[in-house]
Structures are given as C-alpha cells and as structure tokens.
C-alpha cells in the first residue's frame, strides 16, 4: 500500500465529510448560481466560523471521552461580560483577553468536576452552564442599556483581509493549531488515548485527569471567544445568543466523523461538519424549505453521517485485521456502540 492510499484510507471519514459538503454546495450552485458568488461564500465562511469556534473545544472534549453542554452559556458569557466590562471602561483588547481567561477558568471548573470529583460530564457541564446563566441574568438586570460590543470584537467579526473575512483566517489559524496539537504533540496523543480507553491510558502513564481537565479549559476559552466574535457580528448581546450552538457544536463534531465516545475524530472533520451545517441552512430557503424543515434535514444528516462513518470505520477495522478472526465481529460492534 502506497503512502498516499494509506493517507487517504486513514482519513476517509474526514474526506467523506468534505465530499458531502461539496456535493451540497454544488447542488445549491446548480440550482441558483448566486450561491457560489464571492459575497455569499464569504457569508457562509463567517457563519461557519462561529460554529467552528464553538465546536473547537467540543471536539477536544469529545475526543477525550467527555461532553460540554455549557458551550452556549459560555458563548453568552463571552459577549455579555465583554460589553459589560467595556461599559465600565476596560479596553476592548484587554477585555477580550480577560473574558477568554475567565472562560478558561469556568472550563477549569467543569474539568475539575468531571476529572477529580468524577461527576458525569453531562451533569457537571449542565450545572455549571446553569450557574453561568444565573450569573448573566444578574448582569442583565444591573444594566438595562449599554450592551455595546467593543469595536475590536466588531472588527474581528466583520473586517476583511483582501477578499477573505478576518474571522475565517482566524478560524483557519485555530484549525491548523488544533490539528498540530492533536497529531504532533504529546498532549494530542494523550487526548486520543484517554478517549479510547481510560484504563489503557492510565496504565501507559497518561495523567488522564489532567488531560480531561485541559480539554475542558480549552473548551471554555474557545466558547467564550466564539461568543465574543458572534456578538461582534450581531452588534449586540443577549442571553440566548449561544442557544443554537449547543446543537450545532455537537452536530458538527458528529458529522465530522468523531465518535461521541471519544478516541476517534479530527478537528478537520469538525470543520467539514461546521461547513456542512452552514451550507445546509443557507441552501434550504432556495428550495422553499422552512426552518422547520431544516431541523428535519439536520437530524437526517446526523443519522446518515453517523451510519456512514461507522460503516467506513468498520470497513477500516476489517481490512486492518483481515485474517485475524479470533474476535466475534458482533461483539466488536457492541464494544464500539
């Protein structure tokens, strides 16, 4: 097997996710040529980047075998806290740095609860999200007006560098950083090992707790940043601004081919997932489909995506251990499911 086919084989799920996205984009373009116009593509990239930022931390958390339900509240926190501090005179850049750091600290709380106190991730991140929501409600009541988003955040979200939106370049930077982190560093290998099998990872000397903790810290920071950029784009902040991203951040990870149980997936896959979700939501109005229909299509894409990626992964496993048939294949599926 040549290096190229091996490369493609290893990444066939990610490639399939991009192929799905490309097919959808082609269908939309054939139907209405304006879909491929520069301005529309820019728009798509901007919307997809919001999903991409929110799903960045989610990917890391899921790869290590966890789940972060606090993402939407951390996004709301990012925008609301930033404008609240800006109203009391903090400069925009300093504000962004501080908000991202506090987001990381909230992620630390999630990680501590999951890794040290052994609270199930769903419960821990749900409770922390609720506490963040309550805190944001107190800010909202203190000041009725003045949810002015600092200009820096608006610039990041709306400015362009040549033909490309700044926010898309930032996203590309994050994606490269994430893929280096995951595939070239010790921490990346440990994240996969932790997600694949906590017991095996522990036995091979991985500090599983610390790895888990770090994924939640990064998720908190990424979600806060996502909220900052999103509120910069919208131009104002409100409590429910992150609500749609609970679903899309998880859906992007799943469509990107990651296993929700951890240990398998890439951030490039999630990028494809974010692009697919965004293209879908932009193209459905062209076919006279409502937002209600979009929800149905989202669900079908998730279920089909999982079915296909599992089919692909199963085929991959079979080719790898062709000949060694000491396992009952049925049991194998059971272990994976």
């Amino acid at each position, binding site marked *: 097997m040549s290096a190229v086919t091996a490369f493609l084989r290893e990444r066939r799920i990610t490639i399939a996710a991009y192929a799905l996205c490309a097919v959808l984009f082609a269908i939309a373009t054939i139907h209405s040529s304006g879909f491929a116009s520069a301005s529309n593509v820019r728009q798509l990239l901007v919307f997809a980047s919001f999903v991409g930022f929110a799903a960045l931390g989610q990917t890391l958390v899921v790869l290590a075998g966890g789940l972060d339900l606090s993402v939407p509240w951390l996004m709301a926190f990012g925008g609301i806290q930033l404008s609240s501090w800006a109203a009391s005179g903090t400069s925009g850049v300093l504000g962004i740095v501080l908000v991202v750091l506090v987001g990381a600290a909230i992620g630390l709380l999630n990680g501590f609860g999951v890794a040290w106190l052994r609270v199930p991730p769903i419960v821990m991140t*749900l409770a922390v999200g609720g506490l963040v929501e309550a805190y944001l409600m107190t800010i909202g009541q203190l000041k009725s007006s003045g949810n002015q988003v600092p200009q820096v955040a608006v610039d990041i979200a709306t400015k362009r560098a040549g033909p490309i939106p700044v926010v898309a370049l930032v996203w590309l930077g994050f994606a490269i950083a994430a893929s280096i982190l995951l595939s070239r560093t010790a921490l990346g290998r440990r994240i996969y090992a932790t997600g694949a099998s906590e017991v095996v990872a522990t036995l091979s000397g991985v500090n599983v707790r610390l790895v888990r903790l770090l994924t939640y810290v990064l998720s908190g920071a990424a979600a806060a940043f996502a909220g900052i950029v999103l509120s910069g784009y919208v131009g104002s902040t409100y409590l429910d601004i992150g609500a749609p991203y609970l*679903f899309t951040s998880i859906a992007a990870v799943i469509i990107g081919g990651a296993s929700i149980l951890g240990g398998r997936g890439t951030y490039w896959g999630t990028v494809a997932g974010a692009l697919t979700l965004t293209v879908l939501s932009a193209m459905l109005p062209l076919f006279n489909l409502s937002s209600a229909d979009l929800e149905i299509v989202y669900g079908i894409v998730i279920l089909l995506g999982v079915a296909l990626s599992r089919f692909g992964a199963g085929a991959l496993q079979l080719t790898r251990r062709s000949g060694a048939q000491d396992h009952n294949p049925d049991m194998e599926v059971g272990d994976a499911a």
Partner: protein
Amino acid sequence: MSASAAQAVAPRRGALVGRVKISWTGLTTATILIVLAVVDFILQPALLNLLQIGILMQTALPLVLVGAAQTLVVLVRGIDLSVGGIMVLANAATAVWVGERGGAHQLMIFLILGLAAAAGLLNGILVAVARFEPFVATLGTWTIFNGIALNILPTDGGTPPPSLISFTFGTTAGIPNSLIVLVVLLLAWRALRGSRLGTRIYAVGADEERARLNGTSIVGVKLFVYAAAGLLAGLAGVFLAGVTSSGTPTAGDPYILTSVAAVVIGGTSLAGGSGGIGLTMMAALALIFISDIISAINLETWVSVAASSGLLLIVVVARTLIDREIQRRRT
C-alpha cells in the same frame, strides 16, 4: 467502565434482598423534597389545600412525565434527548389535529399517544437494532421531531379540545385530576418495577452481557423502554396543551436537560441499573417547589436558575464523594 459497573452491582444486590427497602438515595431525595415543600407551605399557608396542591401539580406534571420517560431510558444506560421533540410533536398534534372535533376526541388523543410511542420506538430501533449511540441517535431524532412539530403548528396557538382542558383543571370526587394522574403514574411504575419486565430493565442496565447470558432479550427490553419513554413524553405534551390551553411547538427544549437534572438529583445512576421513576418524581417536584418558593418571596428569576443548578451540583458531588468513601471503607 466495566470496573465501575461491577462496583455498581454490589450495593444493588443488597438492596434487592429486602422486600421493603429504604435506600439511602431515596431518603436524601425525600428529605430534599420535604424540606422544600415545608418551606413553601410555611411561606404560603394557603397552599395547604387539595385544590391548590392540584394547581401546583398541573405545573409539575409535564416535567414529572418527561422525567419519568428519561428515567426509563437512563435505567438501561441510555439517554433520550428526543423527549423534548416527542413532547412538542404530541403537543402540536393535540392543538391542531384534535381541534374542536366532536365526539372523537378521546380516540384522536389515543392515536397521538400511539404516534408518540412509535416515535419512541424509532429511537429504540436506532439504539437497540442499528446500535447507534443513544446520545447521537436521539440528538438526530430530537431535531427531526421538533421540525415535524413546527410543520404541524408553526407558531404558538391552535385549539386543544375543551374536554382536555377541563380535564386538566378539573377534579374527580374532589381530588384534582393532576394529582390522580401523578398517583396513577406512580402505581403503574410500581407494577412495572415488580414485574419480570421491570427486573429485566434493571438487569440490562446493570450488566448487558450478563443479562444476555441469562436469556434476556436486550433488544426487546430496549425497544419497550424507548417506546414507553416516547409514550410518557407524548403524554407530557398532551397534558401541556391542556394546562396552557394552547399548542406551544417550541416548548420542548428546556425539558430535555431539566429532565436529565431531575433524574440525577433523584438519584438514578446515569451508568444504568439503579434508581427509579419514584426518585425522579420527587426530584421534579423539588425543582417545582424551588421555583414556587422563589416566586413566593419575590426573588428574581436568576435565583431560581442558580438554586436549581446549585442543587444539582451539590447533590451530585455529595453523592459521588460519599459513594467513594463507602467504597473505600469496604475495601
């Protein structure tokens, strides 16, 4: 995973020996509920009246029913994010399809409940037969059911049948119907729990492999559990249509995670095999009492949100730490 499952089996075996067992978990949940109820009754003495309690139960019933649905699924080590979707599906259908039709109300509502059970069965097929991860399968069906509900009823409105509305607000022999539904649910759960099927549900949740070796049909049990969860979520949607006298196709989402919170506060283990609907009912009522207390003393909404999340966090952390301590002393 298998190590924690083995640990979880030990205390449960002990619990099954005694016919009348009072678990430590049940005791803490009951204490939380009683304390909150007493505080609420002290703050609002007027509540100590069967009709007032009935009104409180009307508010509580949708969460109790969705919580019961979630409990069944969690008992077999699953999770159901689609309960919110099935709930609004039944809710929208009740508000639109039944409408002000003549005598066929009841039949139509039974059909809607059948549809809800079929929606749950679809989850069961995806999880048990196609072997999707429960979280992923129900994430997909959640948004599909939400979309169908919005197609049936695009915005709040519609007209639930008057007989349903009068039933939800009514009384039978002086007892509020909402309270009766609650008691019937509890009795049905007791009956299920005592049956062979009930034993199998716990067996599948505790250790699927061992249950399979003992001749339990894992697929059969899971199909039943997910279909029953769909039915209960549908019932919640129908009841909500009665309580609000309207259809609310976007009302389901908040119930999804709150139902998980109620399950966990109640003491049902997300690892499956231990807990029950009774515990979740107590926890759901406790959450309702919290928001009732907060509004009684005119505190802001955020206090209620913080109190619910805080309760979830404290209860879970306390239980985890105490369980670990017990485990350590045993070994």
